[in-house]
């Protein structure tokens, strides 16, 4: 019995070694890939022939009417409660004593009103916010199942049928651009109105903006309004130190903006 038993055990051990080996390959090798951002899987599609969508925001033009945030909710079935926004507008007020007050009641829908008395104001401005469609998107990096991805045209999207609802992407987004949709129970965010832009239309927020504070366009197209906007104005992205390589560019961005 002795040798037979030991032989059996060898077999068992060999089988487990195979399982162990497999798991090692999975669990030890995988982490090393983490060292780098994953290469864009759509690399072999000829991306230069496709548009590369981006947006410009002209802070000097924005009057804080909140029409964009409202249009977005209607266009994209965003829950109407004030905790879910694909885009919103922030009002910054720098007081004479240096204090900065930021407000965005209901995301600016219905129009932003100044709550600080005129005499105390040093300066005030509005900042529309949305997903920045980061080139190095932390949300895409973090999603455990790959439900969040970058489309070949550079739009960061969520696959509703795939998202497991772990909220990791929401934690990973530095801009608060994502929310957990309470009805679909998946992560939700701005898509640049992907359904509209694919048909040659403008995103809803751009379409309704009465002052043309939002400029949407193709970064590959040298004649597009967006490229012209970038040429004419000194622009900056939000939180550049995080190296997300955002594709939403702001003109007139003040250092108070977070």
């Amino acid at each position, binding site marked *: 019995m002795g040798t037979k038993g030991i032989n059996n055990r060898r077999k068992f051990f060999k089988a487990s070694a195979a399982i162990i080996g497999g798991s090692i390959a999975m669990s030890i090798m995988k982490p090393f890939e983490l060292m780098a951002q994953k290469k864009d899987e759509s690399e072999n599609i000829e991306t230069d022939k496709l548009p590369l969508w981006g947006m410009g925001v002209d802070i000097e033009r924005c009057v804080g009417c909140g029409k964009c945030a409202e249009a977005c909710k209607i266009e994209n079935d965003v829950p109407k409660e*004030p*905790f879910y926004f694909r885009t919103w507008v922030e009002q910054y007020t720098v007081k004479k004593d240096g204090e900065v007050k930021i407000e965005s009641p209901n995301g600016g829908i219905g129009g932003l009103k100044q709550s600080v008395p005129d005499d105390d104001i040093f300066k005030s401005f509005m900042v529309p916010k949305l997903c920045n469609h980061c080139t190095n998107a932390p949300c*895409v990096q973090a999603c*455990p199942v*790959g439900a969040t991805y970058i489309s070949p045209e550079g739009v960061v999207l969520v696959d509703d049928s795939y998202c*497991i609802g772990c909220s990791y992407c929401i934690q990973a987004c530095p801009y608060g651009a994502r929310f957990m949709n309470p009805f679909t129970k998946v992560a939700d965010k701005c898509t640049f109105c992907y359904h509209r832009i694919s048909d040659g239309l403008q995103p809803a927020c751009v379409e309704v903006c009465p002052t043309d504070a939002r400029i949407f366009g193709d970064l590959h197209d040298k004649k597009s309004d967006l490229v012209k906007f970038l040429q004419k104005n000194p622009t900056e992205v939000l939180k550049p130190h995080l190296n997300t390589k955002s594709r939403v560019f702001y003109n007139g961005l003040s250092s108070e903006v977070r």
Partner: protein
Amino acid sequence: MEEHFQHLYQALSQVDGYIYPNEIDLHWGLMIVLYPYITGLVAGAFILASLERVFHVKVLKPTYGIALLTALAFLAVATMPLVSHLQHPLRSYEIFMTPNSTSAMAIFGFVYLWYLMAVLLLEIWFDYRRDFVIWSKTSTGFKKIFYKLITLGINDTDEKSAKLDDRLGYFITVVGIPSAFLLHGYVGFIFGSIKANPWWSTVLMPIIFLFSAMVSGVALVMLIYMVVSWIRKVEIDMKCLDTIAKYLFYILLIDFVLESLDQIHRIYEAEESFDIIKVLVNGKLYITLVLMQWGIGTWIPLGVIGLFQFYKPSEKIKKAAYFIVGIFVLVGIFFMRWNIVIGGQLFSKSLSGFTTFTAVYSGMEGYLMAAVWLIIPLFILAFLLWLMPPWKKISYQE
């Protein structure tokens, strides 16, 4: 749904300063506090067991089996809080089917499986195989069937086979130590790699998690050893207890030094996020961080065990003190997880304001459910101890 919205409206009214509108809904609650807590207990218990095995720390022998079974009992439920918190729990298998290789959370799934299957189960199996064979001959009913099946038909009990088991088990323990490190280091990385959150994003996070895991695991095994001895009405081996307490002291000290280093680094560099973190620590986190985590969970235990290195009270007092210290440490580490997971979401990524966390009692994310996830492993452990009592092993001497 209405209830959820009510909850959010209430949170909205309590916002202090400015937070991004999407941040009112706190996405990670109690379940995500439990997840690193339970995983940490597993890693810590296992590392204690491995110390005995690999470094031949003979005095720890009475806790070896208990530590392994504790690790298994907690590992069995470790992913449950995580899965139950998902909005689409039925899709969770996708983490294994189509993992995203750049995601720390996806890789954790594999590390977990590897650790459970390849390390813990195998180690326990090699450790018990010979006893299973022997027990299968002397027991009846369910136990007999279980022992028979679990031997997988390998029935030799001679010295040679016992040596082989021992060698293979040893080998697995050696592989197991870095695996346990990996398991919990990785949990730390899930938080430490989020650059969006300055409270989480520190390179020390995996190592802090690791040491705090060891602290909690060692404390847990110490408590369980005491309780099991009381229930079995056997003398607690004081030498063993003293040694565990001493380990607890040193690991807790390292853990505290690491965390202080992290804090000092933050204070000295005083980056953009420092102002808000300062307010966070002195305000919303004061009770859970300063009082619970540092006071109850660190300073008192350090003080008490430290004192015992010089002043030797009676065994009775010592036992009582160790028991209380063990509980304090477990509470402290729970709040450490709390402070990271909840604390990290209390301030806005706009660094301009705070929200509040209001826990609920019922529901999948509530206190009751959390208690359930902490109690189930104790039942599993009781069952395991009944099924495979380490003190009935032939190699066990009290």
